[in-house]
C-alpha cells in the first residue's frame, strides 16, 4: 500500500481528542435524542465513531509488520 496514504489515515485518530476534550462544545441539553440530553448522546456517539476511525487506521497499517 502507498506509505503516504497509510500515514494520512493516522491523522484521523486526532478527531476523538478534538471532539471530546473541549467540553464547552457539547455541554448542552438540546437537542435531545431518545430522551438523552445532547451532552450524553454526543459523547456516547463518539464510541462507535472512534472505533470506526481506529479501524480505518488499522486497515492502513496492519501490513506494516
Amino acid at each position, binding site marked *: 500500500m502507498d506509505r503516504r496514504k497509510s500515514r494520512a489515515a493516522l491523522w484521523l485518530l486526532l478527531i476523538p481528542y478534538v471532539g471530546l*476534550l473541549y467540553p464547552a462544545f457539547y455541554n448542552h441539553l438540546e437537542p435531545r435524542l431518545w*430522551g438523552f440530553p445532547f451532552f450524553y448522546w454526543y459523547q456516547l456517539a463518539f464510541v462507535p465513531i472512534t472505533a470506526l476511525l481506529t479501524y480505518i487506521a488499522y486497515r492502513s497499517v496492519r501490513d506494516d509488520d
Partner: protein
Amino acid sequence: MTTDPAAAPAVWTPTLNYSALAVFLFFFLLVTVMGFVAARWRKPETLAHIDEWGLGGRNFGTWITWFLVGGDFYTAYTVIAVPALVYAVGAYGFFALPYTIVVYPFVFLVMPLLWKKAKEMNYVTSADIVHGKYNSRALELVVAITGVVATMPYIALQLIGMEAVIKALGLSGISVGPIHNFPLTIAFLILAFYTYSSGLRAPALIAFVKDIMIYIVVIVAVIVVPMKLGGYGAVFDKAGADFAAAGKGGLLLGGNQMAAYATLALGSALAAFMYPHTLTGIFASNSANTIRKNAVLLPAYTLLLGLIAMLGYMGHAAGIKVAANNDIVPALFDTLFSGWFAGFAYAAIGIGALVPAAVMSIGAANLFTRNFWKAYVNPQVTPAGEAAVAKVTSLVVKVGALLVIVYLPTKFALDLQLLGGIWILQTLPALVFGLYTNWFRAPGLLAGWAVGFVGGSWMAWGPEGLKPLQALPFGGPAGTTVYIGLIALVLNVAVAIAVNLVTARRPVAAA
C-alpha cells in the same frame, strides 16, 4: 416541587436474601473451579517460567486479549464508583466516558511498539523496557517502584467493590475471631491461591465469565429499568430535578468544571496503560496486530461503561436514598429486580473484582521479580526461579491489600489510589518517548520523574485531605481548574528536556 417528608423513601438497607445468595455462591464456586483448572488451559510444557506464569505464554489472540484487557481495565470498582459519582454530582462523573474513548487511539499508536520491544528482548515489565533502552538501573528502579506503589491501592479498591456486594447480600460485619469481614477475606484468599497456581491464565479464563455476566446485567438494566421508570427522558428529568433541589451537581458541567473534566479524561487516558496490570495484558498478547485490533474492539466496553454510569441517574429516578454513594448500584438492583437477578448482578460485580485484582498482583509481582530480585538479589536467577519468586510476591501483594482494607480506613486506599494515578503518569516519558526518539537520556528522564512525582504529590496535598485538581492562575478570575497529574507531567517533560540540554552529550571523540 416539594417532597412530603412522610413520603420520602427510607434509606436503603440490605437484607439477607437467600435466592440472591444462592446465585452468588453458585457463580463464585464456578469461577473458583475455573481458576484452578486454568493451569491446564492452553497447557504449556511447564508453568515454571515467568513467561508462562506471568504472561500466559505471550500467546493470547484477539478474543482472549479482548476479554482479559476488558475485564482488567473496566474493574468492579468502576461499576460501583462511576455510578456513585454520577449519582452524587451528575455530569462531572461522566469524565470516565471521554477518558475510555480517547485512551484507544493512544493504545493503537503506542502499545504495538512497546509489545514489539518486549517480544524481541523477552522483556516482561515496563521497567525492563526502560532498562533496556537507557541502561540505567536507577531509572529502571523508579519506574518499577512507581508501578508497584500505584498498583497496591488499585487492588485495595477492588476489595472495596467486592465489599459493596457482600454488604448488599446482607453478609457484612461477620467477624470470626480477629478477622473482620470474614466473607471478604475468604473470597480474597481463594483468589490468591488460584492466582498462585495458575498465574495469568486464571484471570484470563475467568474474564470470559465475568465480562459476559456484566454485559448481560448492564444490557438488562438499561432496557428494563427505564421501562419501569418511564423512559430515559423521565430518568434525566428526575435526576435533574433532584440536583436542582439539592443545589449541587447537575445534568451539565458547571463553568469551572469543564477544564477539570477534559484534563481528567486526558490525564487518566495517558496513565491507564502505564499501569502494570494493563501492560501485562498487552505483553501477554501474541502480536502487534492483536493489540491494534483490540484498540478497535475494546470501545465496546466503553459503551457499556457509559450505560453503567447511567445507573446513577436511574437511582434518582427510582427514588433511592443510600447511606453511602457506593451503595447505589446494589441498592438499585435490590429495589428493582427479583432476588435471583440481583444475586446474578452482585456475582458479576464480585467476579469483576477478582479478575483485575489477580492481574494487578501478577503485574506487581513481575515488576518485583524482574526489576528488584533479578537486578539486585540474584542476577543469575533462572526463568523458573523468577516464576517462583513472582508467585510468592503475588501472594504477599494481595494479603497486603487485604490487610489495608480490613484494618485501615477506606479513605486511606482512596487517597493512595488518587496519588497512584498521578505517580504512574510520571513514568510515561521514560517508557514511551524512547520508542520514537533517541534524544532523551537517563539523567533527564530521572530528574523529570522526580519533579513530576514530588511536585504532583505536593499539589495534591490540600488542607482538607488530598485533591485531584489544582486551580491555575489563568482564564478568568477563578482561574482554570486542571487535573494535577497532567500538570505534573508537563513539569516532568519540561525538566527532562532542560536537563537533557544542559547535560548535553559530549561529542564522541574520533576513534
